[in-house]
């Protein structure tokens, strides 16, 4: 009844004001999720289920580097949820009043950690240099690719090698973790340090070796409802989905660790 009443009002409005007036009333509710690029596959999968569970909602996903997203959010981009690849970036957004205060009161000012990512030694499937652990990367005849120390994976690699007490001189400092992975996939280097999620994404094109020192450089992924959220309830529902059993399963399948 109410729907039909609204529709007839709309028709009236359309007659009076022109057809554009109707468009606003029929628009579906949009949820803007800003997420670190490494979450692309997982969040794209979760969005389908979310849209089915919340009819009339459309999830708009914006994937980029966490730092770039933080700049967009603090510059006023329309964002409802932010999932960052490191706690420092989320802390920066929170520091500028970017996190929804009501949500923060319940879940923490700097977001809730929903996943972790750890380093792996990626080697070509046949492991030509016979790499078994971090110490092998220091061997002179082993060609290694690392992330540049200016980018997060490079800082993590540094922490891990320092913890192991090995000094690795790579043949190249790559600009991001995917570039390291590519060099390993092509067999141009004997080993590279990448994240577990990158190994999972590469399938059987690379082998990932776990190593104990990886525990010193675990990357935590925090998520938060943002202060600018158009519908904080809906945004919180997305966060709950990510932290639910289904969300955790999807994250685990992509190589993420539990928080």
């Amino acid at each position: 009844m109410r729907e039909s009443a609204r529709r007839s009002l709309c028709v009236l409005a359309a007659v009076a004001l022109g057809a554009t007036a109707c468009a606003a009333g029929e628009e579906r509710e949009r949820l803007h999720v800003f997420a670190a690029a490494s979450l692309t596959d997982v969040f794209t999968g979760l969005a389908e289920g979310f849209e089915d569970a919340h009819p009339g909602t459309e999830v708009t996903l914006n994937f980029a580097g966490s730092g770039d997203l933080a700049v967009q959010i603090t510059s006023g981009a329309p964002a409802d949820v932010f999932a960052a690849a490191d706690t420092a970036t989320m802390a920066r957004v929170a520091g500028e009043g970017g996190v929804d205060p009501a949500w923060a009161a319940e879940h923490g000012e700097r977001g809730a950690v929903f996943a972790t990512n750890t380093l792996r030694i990626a080697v070509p499937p046949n492991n030509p240099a016979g790499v078994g652990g971090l110490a092998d990367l220091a061997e002179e005849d082993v060609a290694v690719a690392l992330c540049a120390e200016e980018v997060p994976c490079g800082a993590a690699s540094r922490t891990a090698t320092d913890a192991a007490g090995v000094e690795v001189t790579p043949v190249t400092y790559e600009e991001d973790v995917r570039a390291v992975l590519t060099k390993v996939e092509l067999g141009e280097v004997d080993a590279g340090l990448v994240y577990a999620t990158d190994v999972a994404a590469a399938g059987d094109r690379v082998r990932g070796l776990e190593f104990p020192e990886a525990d010193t450089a675990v990357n935590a992924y925090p998520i938060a409802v943002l202060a600018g959220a158009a519908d904080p309830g809906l945004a919180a529902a997305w966060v709950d989905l990510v932290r639910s059993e289904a969300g955790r399963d999807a994250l685990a399948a992509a190589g993420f660790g539990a928080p």
Partner: protein
Amino acid sequence: MRSGRSPWILVLPALTGLALLVLPLTGLVVRAPWSTMGERLGDPAVLTALGLSLSTATAATACSLLLGVPLAWLLARTEFPGRRLVRALVTVPLVMPPVVGGVALLLVLGRNGILGRHLDAWFGVTVPFTPAAVVLAQVFVAMPFLVISVEGALRGADRRYEEAAATLGASRAAVFTRVTLPMVLPGVGAGAALCWARALGEFGATITFAGNFPGTTQTMPLAVYVAMRHDPEAAVVLSLILLLVCLAVLAALRERWTNT
């Protein structure tokens, strides 16, 4: 040239075009933290990257001259089947995103590449992650500029001089070095300058094929890119240094070659 008022139909688009090219540079100059310029110029890491950039770009230009001028001559002065296709192939690196060019170079000359595999097995030579790889990447993206401008110059040159030299008994090689080359020298100079500038700014193919290691393969554009990730101000300063050096060298050469 007749003096008088220039037609606005040419001046207006010319000025708009100029603005489009110069405005981004203005942004860079205005935003640059000039006070830190001297400090950065004294930074050994910056000087290493700058030195590597200048030497590799010069080596790449020398290679391009050695290979590209004969290639341009072949395209402009000889008839062979598939010439149009060859000319189109020469322009492929211009169209291809440089990163793709870098991957293509890896697939051919990398350790597991089609040719690189044998280089490694027979001679123990691996090309990627060496300064030679930087030069190769630069030649790949920059040589087409040289070939196209030299070919254009050759097509524009008056062939009657070459024919006269030939009827007087000069061999084809002598005609090329004594008549053709001096005639198209301005075109070669312009092509070499373009090629050098493009090589100096090369980024995508270099970082993909040669990697990024300070002192060996980290050229200025790579240093700029890495700096951008954590210290954008430093990146602006580094870009300006590269730009100023490039402009200074090109201006000096232009003065020399063309006396204008």
